[in-house]
């Protein structure tokens, strides 16, 4: 008899786990909160992915196709795990969707509930929502995905654009002390995309540290060398309205100019990643641990980053902390392997 495994969350991590399990002949139940699968990359229409700028469809589209065509994956859209109980070494879960509620017994569970984008309106100094031309990286990702590169306020091409890093990350006032890991690389990637679209547009990046770790550094060098993106060390203290429908960034250039106030046509905030409301929710529903950053806590962050503290429940992707798609996919595979082993052992 085939194993039954529950996967919660249909982003890159959950989809890859589901696909791998289905290839092993497991009956997979995939519970997805949204009416579509593909996670944040699908929701915000990511078009080209770092590090190699390949079309997102190569990755996300591919995973969605495999999930939908893999015969033994049952996807529940717009659904949730409404009830969850341990049953010996197995688990009884009730899945609530538009089609009603269904209770099934699972041999093991993979949680891949992902992240939420930090809402920049929570940090008043950036005037997000106050000015149309102050947007964030997820807004720009979606705009570019829809082939829309122009200023929200007037539909004109921007003459200059500022990226502000570490919005909602590395800030005790906000309550997020951690680094979101991907926002430096996303900003550099988007800066390059903007320059490719509008070669005459001046693009600035205001940073505290540039963390394009590992091979992502290539994009950072490319941004400076090939696209003349201006990289300025200093965090922005305030965004106000300026002359001629501009927004003014005020800050300190800590290396060169000292104080500055520069009017921009468009400002892009590099909002970070958060555990979102789903992390504490799933933590209390399944009885697994939450960490001090608001993400799900692995049993051992180095030895078994894909295991929860509860035997039989595994973790994958950005639900355990900020990470890139490749890491999320790797963890999806690792969690699948472990969930399968657990299921087979307790057959």
């Amino acid at each position, binding site marked *: 008899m085939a194993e039954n495994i529950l996967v919660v969350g249909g982003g890159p991590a959950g989809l890859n786990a589901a696909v791998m399990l289905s290839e092993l002949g497991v009956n997979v139940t995939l519970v997805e909160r949204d009416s579509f699968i593909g996670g944040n990359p699908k929701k915000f229409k990511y078009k080209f992915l770092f590090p190699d700028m390949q079309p997102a469809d190569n990755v996300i589209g591919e995973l969605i196709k495999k999930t939908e065509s893999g015969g033994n994956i049952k996807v529940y859209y717009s659904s949730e795990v409404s009830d969850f109980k341990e049953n010996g070494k197995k688990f009884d879960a009730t899945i609530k969707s538009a089609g009603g509620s269904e209770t099934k017994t699972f041999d093991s569970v993979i949680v891949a509930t992902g992240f939420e984008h930090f809402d920049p309106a929570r940090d008043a*100094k950036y005037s997000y929502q106050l000015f149309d031309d102050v947007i964030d990286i997820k807004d720009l990702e979606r705009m570019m995905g829809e082939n829309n590169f122009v200023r929200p306020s007037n539909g004109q091409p921007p003459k200059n654009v500022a990226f502000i890093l570490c919005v909602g990350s*590395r800030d005790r006032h*906000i309550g997020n002390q951690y680094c979101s890991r991907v926002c430096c690389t996303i900003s550099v990637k988007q800066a390059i995309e903007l320059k490719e679209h509008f070669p005459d547009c001046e693009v600035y990046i205001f940073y*505290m*540290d540039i963390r394009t770790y590992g091979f992502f550094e290539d994009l950072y060098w490319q941004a400076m060398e090939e696209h003349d993106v201006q990289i300025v060390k200093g965090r922005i*203290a305030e965004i106000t309205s300026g002359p001629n429908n501009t927004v003014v960034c005020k*800050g300190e250039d800590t290396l060169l100019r*000292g104080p500055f106030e520069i009017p921009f046509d468009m400002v892009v905030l590099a909002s970070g990643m958060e555990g979102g409301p789903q992390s504490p929710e799933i933590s209390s529903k399944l009885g697994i641990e939450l960490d001090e950053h608001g993400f799900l806590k692995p049993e051992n962050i180095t030895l078994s980053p894909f295991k929860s503290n509860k035997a039989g429940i595994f973790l994958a992707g950005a639900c355990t902390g900020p990470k890139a798609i490749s890491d999320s996919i790797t963890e999806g595979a690792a969690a699948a392997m472990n969930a399968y082993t657990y299921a087979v052992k307790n057959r």
Partner: protein
Amino acid sequence: MEYDENGVSIVPSGFKREIFEEARKDFRYEEYVRGCLNCGVCTGGCPPHRFFDFSPRIVLQNMKSKDPELIWTMMDEYIWACFQCFTCAMICPFLNSPGGIIAVLREIAVRRGFESAKKVLKPYSRVLLKLTAYGNQLSPDMIQPDFFPDWGPHIGYAATDLAAKRKAIPMPTLQVTNLSWDVAPEAMKELYDIFDEAGVFKIIEAVDPSLYEIIQDIVDDVRSS
């Protein structure tokens, strides 16, 4: 005191270390000086930064360096450029308070009667006198063009015929011009006790000995009345 060939006093490094240790021992130090990302957001929000070569980020970096030389360089002018508005503390992602540590350094300068503190407090001697001796801050006779140029072009007019102008105010104003309101001798005695306990008189003695004498004469008079 030793002097160099230009007649500038040489401050021994041991003394500079003592100043730093005094700041570090302050009970607020740990709270005000944590880590620093060198991000400059404090400086970006700092009002005087736009007018002077002054940066709260530098203040915090100097403190973090634990280098008594660097900290000493701020004691003369640097710390006095701050408005004490605490914008820096409100926006620092590390929850540092550059404005707070500046207050700690200023208190050291005042307690020790440094020249810089004397210079900065000089224009306030009349305020200090009124405040410590009578419990009033500003009185009408203090409104003089020389002292309040920032009050605008009509300050000259405002300073004339004070007695007549006071009478024109429909509220009871004592009809005097050398005080804002009457303070009972009992209240003044209590005030003096508080100033004694809090070390306020000691501080005034350190920064302005002649003002201190004038105040003490008044204090003695009131106390013996």
